[in-house]
């Protein structure tokens, strides 16, 4: 590190800059050809999963990304982790651009970032014991490590996630879903990362187990001063877990705010609809905001604001001009012409 750089404590840990990712719909060359106005043209379609997302993760925070299925939240997680290459834009980790690094230079960065996946039944190798599963990342990142040290490390980490360290020789099928997710978390913690991307880590678990795993993740965050990028569709968990929330719709951000601000005064019409749809233990019948229509397909994105065809406040400007993410008076950032013009309070 050169001395001219900003001190790392004040710098954003991860910066997502103008990120776009599209997946080509693979078709044969002949299928791409269409007749149009008497001419043969070649048409290529793609699923536009992320469309120009700017997002910074501050050191020590838990940033939640929420949205419905197909909004691109998991794709963001995967691009940040380098599991997918961005179509446009860049990812910076601690001031260093990482999405274009060659594998050997990426390796030291990778050690600092780990991922927890949704389904603990699919993300653990069924033929590896817990010991082998936990050892693997450690051996990979520290080739010279001794067996004794490794065994101690496995025991400490297993203990810290609440899995009995005497079960190291067991296989994943011998554990319940909640225990497996603890093992996935242990695997992520093995290399002492700074940054963890958790993609729906509790969605596959039962209610009573969800609370256990969330508490564990909060404990780990405090003890190890971790930074989380937490992807979820469950807003009731977000209210509890994150410092800040980013709401995504069709691959773009609609709102970015402090968690408390977002739940107390949601601004974007989509955020309002999402929050009103959470089933709560209240007496009255749900009075949720009804959205008209369906989520458009990410193959043919709507013009203007992506949300305009489902928004009751949409006007002509919304149909043609894409709203930028703007700072509002209560500190949240909202991408909505209605808010900007003061049409929506």
């Amino acid at each position, binding site marked *: 590190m050169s001395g001219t750089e900003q001190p790392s404590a004040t710098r954003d840990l991860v910066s997502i800059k103008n990120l776009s990712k599209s997946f080509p719909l693979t078709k044969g060359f002949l299928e791409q050809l269409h007749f149009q106005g008497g001419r043969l043209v070649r048409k290529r379609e793609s699923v536009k999963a992320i469309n120009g997302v700017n997002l910074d993760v501050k050191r020590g925070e838990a940033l939640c990304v929420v949205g*419905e*299925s197909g909004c691109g939240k998991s794709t963001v997680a995967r691009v940040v982790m380098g599991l997918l290459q961005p179509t446009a834009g860049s990812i910076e980790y601690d001031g260093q651009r990482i999405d274009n690094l060659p594998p050997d230079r990426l390796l030291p960065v990778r050690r600092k970032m780990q991922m927890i996946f949704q389904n603990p039944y699919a993300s653990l190798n069924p033929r590896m014991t817990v010991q082998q599963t936990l050892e693997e990342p450690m051996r990979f990142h520290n080739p010279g490590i001794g067996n004794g040290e490794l065994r101690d490390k496995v025991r400490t980490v297993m203990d810290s996630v609440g899995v009995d360290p005497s079960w190291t020789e067991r296989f994943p099928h011998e554990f*319940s879903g*909640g*225990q497996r997710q603890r093992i996935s978390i242990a695997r992520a913690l093995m290399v002492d990362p700074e940054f963890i991307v958790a993609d729906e880590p509790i969605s596959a678990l*039962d*209610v*009573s*187990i*969800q*609370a*256990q795993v*969330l*508490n564990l993740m*909060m404990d780990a965050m405090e003890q190890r001063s971790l930074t989380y990028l937490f992807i979820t*569709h469950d*807003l*009731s*968990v977000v*209210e*509890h*877990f994150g410092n800040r929330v980013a709401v995504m719709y069709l691959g773009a951000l609609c709102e970015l705010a402090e*968690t*408390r601000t977002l739940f107390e005064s949601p601004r974007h019409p989509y955020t309002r*609809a*999402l929050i*009103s*749809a*959470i*089933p*709560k*233990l*209240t*007496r009255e*019948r*749900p009075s*949720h905001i*009804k*959205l008209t229509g*369906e*989520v458009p397909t990410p193959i043919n994105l709507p013009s203007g604001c992506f949300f305009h065809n489902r928004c009751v406040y949409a006007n002509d400007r919304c149909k043609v001009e894409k709203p930028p993410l703007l700072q509002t008076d209560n500190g949240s950032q909202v991408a909505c012409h209605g808010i900007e013009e003061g049409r929506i309070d």
Partner: protein
Amino acid sequence: MPLLEVRGLEVKFPIRQYELTALRDVSFSLDKGQRLGIVGESGAGKSVAAFAILNLIGRPGYISKGEIIFEGANLAKMSPQQLRTIRGNRINMIFQDPMMTLNPVLTIGTQMIECLQTHQNLSKGKAREVAIEKLRQVQIPSPHERIDQYPHELSGGMRQRVVIAIALLTDPSVIIADEPTTALDVTIQAEIMELLVELCETSDVALMLITHDLGVVSQVTQRTIVMYAGRVVEEGPTRQIIENARHPYTHGLIDALPERTNPGMRLNQIPGVMPSLNAIPKGCSFHPRCEHQTELCRTELPGYVGQEGIRIACHWVASQEQQQ
């Protein structure tokens, strides 16, 4: 007389030398037009209970004990022919995943007409009219065109609307919905749930809603049953259960929801996990996870206590009642 009454239902699955008991002594009743919620975590037996009502338990599982009385007849003892006049006609089911429920190679019209003609003596043209009317009722735009489409041409929410339309086709008196909105997004989930409740209300259909989501149960149902390890542990009016749960498991389950804790604080958790069916503890099956356990809990299966309309299977609650 209740519309549907389940008494002492027991379902077993023989597996090699074991015999797993998936349901133990499950009893409940459903009145005309009532909405009943069955809540529990995965493996609690809530889906088995729903399947058992229509005798849909797959081999080698079987109903080993109990009665299912519907309109005066015992469904557990019925011949397959007799049962077919009830299943899909008087008692209908809605399953979790609409893509798995609908046949992907038939248009939705074909599937709806088939269902109608199986149970009612209708011409194809008349059946089509009824089907279009039902699609309109579930708020599918331009039902005349949609009826000739295939399931893959519809979105997830639309498909579940079609499934609801099919469940309502024969004007049943009971609909059993097994996690009908779990596969859907929150905004769609709220819409579908509202629609289902509204339709059941207007046509006076009783709804048995099976779900793991206490929020959904609290907003939709009038009565709730909580299941744990194959047994009903608490039953009562929904508001009573949500606001004043008495069984330690129900209490813990509700307290574990994020909305019951202030933001940023640790969530309330129930320690441990639900036992698997081949290792159900002696006595009360919840005792290893319970903070109120005593010697009695470890040895003896608790019976039911509680005032009218409320049942709780817990020694601790029983001892409190006695003290009062």
